[in-house]
């Protein structure tokens, strides 16, 4: 847990952030000392009636002096930007083969689901030293997934998937907070993140109540919601085949090309008329209101699992 004056650096990313933070702190400290020091010095030395030397202003205090400190400030800030941004860019994309965990937020709780189907509420167990990639969506308003010990935060937005990743570097229990104001019990929308040794995590996973993993749950929905009536290989309806679709470029009827990612699949389920695949009629009905966010995540996971098989045609 947090101590009073320091925050644990519990992820690889936290160390990077703190380095930038400390540099900024040192620079700000120096500036404060300089500005406050000069003001105090002048206030004492040039107080009204003091005998300090006045007379004409020295030559060097002119336009060049002003341009000089402007440029110095500009260069310092450009350096800060470069340093902070390069750290940002290098941590942008989750590493491939990161452990994927789904997060659904709603007023006022966090629901997490592991790849094997294990579900948690207001809690998230993750293994140590393994990149964890969170795929997040919101069922109502905007929330924000905030883990101070990992120095990560990402808004969770309804109608769009956002993601975030981290690699825990310390075992322990760390707070999970909602950082975007989301209504009455915003401040109660808290949970905890438990970082475990990988073998403990594996054991913990097997101890969880039996649940289908996401892809299997999605396969069931695929049949029960009637998707298979058109999209199954055996169907007579002229509908796009889904095997091998995930991650591929898709040519649309209006000439655009999009990548079949989570967001595209979600849009195609909820707003099928928006991105019609070239060569197909816009006959698919919308499933808006029929599927909740968790079910859509299961369906996308199922379609993604189809992508891992070799194409069958």
């Amino acid at each position, binding site marked *: 847990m947090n101590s009073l004056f320091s925050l644990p650096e519990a992820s690889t990313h936290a160390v990077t952030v703190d380095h930038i933070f400390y540099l900024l702190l040192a620079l700000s400290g120096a500036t404060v000392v300089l500005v406050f020091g000069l003001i105090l010095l002048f206030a004492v030395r040039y107080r009204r009636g003091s005998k300090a030397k006045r007379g004409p202003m020295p030559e060097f205090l002119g*336009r060049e002096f002003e341009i000089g400190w402007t440029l110095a400030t500009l260069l310092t800030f450009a350096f800060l930007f470069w340093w902070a941004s390069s750290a940002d860019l290098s941590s942008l994309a989750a590493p491939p083969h990161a452990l994927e965990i789904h997060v659904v937020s709603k007023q006022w709780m966090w629901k997490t689901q592991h790849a094997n189907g294990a579900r948690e509420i207001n809690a998230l167990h993750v293994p140590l030293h393994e990149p964890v990639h969170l795929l997040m969506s919101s069922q109502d308003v905007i929330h924000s997934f905030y883990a101070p010990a990992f120095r990560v935060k990402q808004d969770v937005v309804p*109608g769009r998937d956002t993601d975030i990743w981290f690699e825990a570097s310390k075992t322990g229990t760390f707070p999970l907070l909602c950082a975007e104001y989301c209504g009455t019990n915003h401040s109660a929308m808290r949970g905890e993140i438990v970082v475990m040794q990988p073998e403990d995590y594996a054991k913990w996973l097997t101890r969880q109540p039996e649940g289908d993993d996401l892809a299997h749950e999605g396969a069931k929905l695929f049949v029960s919601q009637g998707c298979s009536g058109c999209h199954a290989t055996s169907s007579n309806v002229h509908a796009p085949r889904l095997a091998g679709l995930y991650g591929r470029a898709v040519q649309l009827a209006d000439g655009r090309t999009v990548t079949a990612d989570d967001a595209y699949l979600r849009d195609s389920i909820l707003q099928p008329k928006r991105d019609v695949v070239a060569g197909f009629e816009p006959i698919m009905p919308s499933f808006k209101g029929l599927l909740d966010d968790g079910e859509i995540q299961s369906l996308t996971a199922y379609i993604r699992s189809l992508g891992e098989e070799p194409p069958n045609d």
Partner: protein
Amino acid sequence: MTDSLLAGELPLPPRPDYLRHGSTVWSWLSTTDHKRIAILYAVTITIFFFLGGAAITAVRLELFQPNGWLMTSDSYNKLFSFHGIIMVWFFLVPSIPNTLGNFLLPLMIGAPDVAFPRLNLFSWYLTIAAGAFTVYALVAGGVDTGWTFYTPYSSMFSNTHVFAAAAGVFVVGFASIATGVNFIATTHMLRAPGMTWFRLPLFVWAIYATSLIMVLATPVLAISLLLVIAERVFGLPIFDPARGGDPILFQHLFWFYSHPAVYIMVLPAMGVVSEIIPCFARRRIFGYDFMVYAMLAIAGIGFFVWGHHMFVSGQSPLASLVFSFLSFIIAVPSAIKVFNWTASLYRGQISFESPMLYALGFVGLFTTGGLSGLFLASIPVDVHVTDTYFVVAHFHYIMVGGSVSAFFAGMHFWWPKVTGRRYPESWAKFAAILMYAGFNMTFLPQFFAGYLGMPRRYHTYPAEFQIYNVMSSAGAAVLAIAYLLPLFYLTWSLFYGGKAGRNPFGATGLEWTTSSPPPPKNFDWQPRIDRAPYDYHAEGMSAGTDPPEMQNAKETQ
């Protein structure tokens, strides 16, 4: 120029000053005199200031305990929302421009009034109408969206009085636009003979730059609130993702106004301080033209940094990079100003009357707030501290430490001119120092709480943050006393204060050449200007070693 000299040149016929020129209530409510409208605004925003202050007093009391002890979460949420809405739109935005700006702009450029006196009065009535909507929202049960009105919460989920509050802010926006148009036209059209652009006092430049932002940015606020109302009241799908809307669109529109709005609040403060520091240091402002360009640069670049409020919203990484870069760039002109104020003290004859204490307090707090802004411009650090108390501390340093300190600085500096009375100086000095101390006691701990991960807008919070909240709440009590003190001694001075002369501080500037309080049309003669502002000593010289009174005497001989 001294009083006796002027009086000797121009024997004035007896005439009432603007305060005694009509004394009925109607003469005030129907006035088109910019000075009287400034007073109307001052009374109005003082009421709003203490309303917003009362709301946050309750909030700070509640935060003594990590799990609350006074109120429900709903009440808490409504109180901080009310505090934000009132303080931003009904105090900070109109504070300096509509009181000091209204009063001083025509005086400083040698004009008899603003360009559109009736529009000026109309904008005050709009403020009153808007305030009525907003206060109604509170009385009727409150609004709980925060001052930011984020969708889809505000447009679909909140079951509080969002409509009344948004309507209030929508209407007060038009008051802001009217004021902006008026000040721009006044600065362009009504400058006295010889008052060239680069002879304008920096306060006029500040008000001019502020007005540009008001006119260009406020319509976007109106649009975004109108869209919230359209979705909430008429069910039009705008932000609802289930019907093809985009909740993030609101944030782009909102911050396109609300980031420049920060400069609406802080540019006038910079103008005030740029008048006061030269006067009490008896020095020309260092780098006048750089100060002007810096203010225009802030006003311009301020329109292109809004995305730094959205680094964690899911906007594209490229957009975040561009916004981060521009946010660093906009810190450069602010840094220039701080350096120039500091350099203006060099070789001065510095005295520490209350306006100077407030002004130096501004420089210190603005510097601290500005430096904390660098943390928020750096994407990785911002991701960690955004939506935490670090941000709360940052913007209070700029808007309360900065703008409110400058507002008090200006109020004390021009009080003798506005009212014709002197206030008790030792009380004023005490209040200035207390305000600086109380402010730091309140907001410095919030930087720590924020860095350690305490999110903002939290009614209940993890127990380890209690110490910081207790420190902050204790500081807020000191700050509250410091804000109440001027209310008493300034009111006292209206009745018992000594008569103020034309120019009690020996300042340059046209407003000090007319009587205190000024006559209805400001000047009894046509002012003409033949020199740069801040003419406290010859070009290239410093304040000199003689006391300033003697210098002035020498100049006039």
